[in-house]
């Protein structure tokens, strides 16, 4: 099926990440995810769309094993990276397997310099050679970070902080990069820049899971997409399919809804009358 692109044997249709029947709760009662199934191909960018509270960040926390830091836990299902279970590991072990997340709100180490932030990112690298290769890659992707190397990260602009957050995550040479709302709070021009950078990271062979509220940007960058609605996968398909779908057009690509209440009502209605032609619902 992919005869035109040379790949290493055995990697042909490999899924790097597969999530099966994943349910997550915070505390005793708050259900954040319900039986979520997702797959990410070795060579793809998966966009995860959804409104506030849909469980997008929770999904990334579950993969990166940081749920516990937020008082949450996996109650059912499993997460596999290649063939290995991730849901029983600690965050550092997940990073060592090659799965690295950029958290929502960037969370750079504000009191440390740009250079020290990158160094911190490299602490999870499997070997020194991986680290030095990653350093070159980061320098190429983000020349601005080299210019600001000795500046405190807290003094960077929002866009630069986002670049630093992504660059820092790349420092351990991940095979799968998880990005949580990288466009949040950035000027449109900077959003375009970040999108191009994500495309480039993908082109260099890193699979990406991109969680976004900015569906326009996400569907441009991604090849596959999934829509999360109150903790469940509502739609999945290729990025083109989703971009063409009426629901996604109306809910995520159209004008902004005046109130969340109305948006929610619209979402519910749209989901109830979902056209089924080109979209495959993910069977649980």
């Amino acid at each position, binding site marked *: 099926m992919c005869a035109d692109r040379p790949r290493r044997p055995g990697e042909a249709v490999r899924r790097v990440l597969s999530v099966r029947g994943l349910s997550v709760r915070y505390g005793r009662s708050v259900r954040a995810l319900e039986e979520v199934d997702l797959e990410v191909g070795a060579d793809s960018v998966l966009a995860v769309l959804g409104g506030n509270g849909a469980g997008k960040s929770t999904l990334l926390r579950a993969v990166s094993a940081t749920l516990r830091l937020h008082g949450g836990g996996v109650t059912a299902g499993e997460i596999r990276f290649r063939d290995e279970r991730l849901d029983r590991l600690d*965050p550092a072990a997940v*990073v060592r397997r090659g799965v690295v997340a950029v958290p929502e709100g960037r969370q750079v*180490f504000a009191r*440390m310099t740009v250079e*020290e932030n990158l160094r*911190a990112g490299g602490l999870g690298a499997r070997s020194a050679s991986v680290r030095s290769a990653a350093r070159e890659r980061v320098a190429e992707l983000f020349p601005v970070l080299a210019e600001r190397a000795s500046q405190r990260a807290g003094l960077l602009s929002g866009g630069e902080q986002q670049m630093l957050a992504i660059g*820092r*995550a790349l420092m*351990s040479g991940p095979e799968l990069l998880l990005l949580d709302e990288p466009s949040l709070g950035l000027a449109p021009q900077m959003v375009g820049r970040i999108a191009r950078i994500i495309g480039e990271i993908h082109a260099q062979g890193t699979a990406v899971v991109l969680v976004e509220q900015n569906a326009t940007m996400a569907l441009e960058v991604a090849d596959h997409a999934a829509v999360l609605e109150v903790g469940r996968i509502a739609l999945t398909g290729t990025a083109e399919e989703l971009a063409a779908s009426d629901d996604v057009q109306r809910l995520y690509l159209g004008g902004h809804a005046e109130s969340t209440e109305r948006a929610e009502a619209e979402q519910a209605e749209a989901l109830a009358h979902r056209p089924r032609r080109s979209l495959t619902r993910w069977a649980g």
Partner: protein
Amino acid sequence: MNTFLQLVLNGLGKGAVYALLALGFVVIFKATEVVNFAHGSLVLIGGYMVYATKDALGWPAAAALGIVSAALAALLIERLLIAHARNADVNSLALLTIGVDVIITEEIVRRLRADIPFIGDPYDAQPLQAAGLTVFRTQLVALIVGIVLITAFFLAFRFSSWGVAMRAQAENREAAALMGIRSSRVTATAWLLAGALAGVAVLFMATQDFSGAGLGRGTHAIALIAFPAAILGGLDSTVGAVVGGLIVGLTEALSAQYVSFEFSKSAVFLVMLLILVIRPSGLFGTRELSRV
């Protein structure tokens, strides 16, 4: 003038010892957010090992053993008690360390019986006289050792991978975890280091020069002076710990001479209160900010 110079030198020597204690205290606080009230008992463990083994092993080996013991005791407290209570409130953990402190202190005092031994054999009670100054050798050695260790600490804290990991974790636990930094390892090394520094400090504290009091409850009381040192410097600042230690040492030495010996201990706390009134987070502490 000579008296003043003498006092400053002795005060700085004492200050270096307080700085070592306060630094360990701050390092633990930064890594775990726990205020370690058991610091005084770590001091006693180190001192007791020196006292118990110096006749058999000779002083240098006994001193090394004391430092290692204090470090391992700190690690043990962290592994057995703190690491297992990861979800516990940091205030409960602080109370837990008070319990540990009482148990260890009472046991060591019981073992010492009526003894209050001095353990600074190579330098204690041999004042140096030069250029009209009389300087306690203990304080001088403490000052040199303090400068060397504190410099080494800051170089490591600033430039080594350990330092980067430590600072990253202190600033943002979640982001550090996402970088693949093993939080339990960072925490364990912080306690190990703090224990070792306490083990070094006691070699100067339980001497005639430093306090006139041998190893015992008195040493424990002196170790408590590290609290105001750390607090007035700013509980989360390593630089603050060192500056705070030196301020406390100087305050103690100068007020003992110019006011009275009895007043010197309360002078330390008065200075702390004064500084906290002006700067509530201490000299170098970061102000409590609401997270954005």
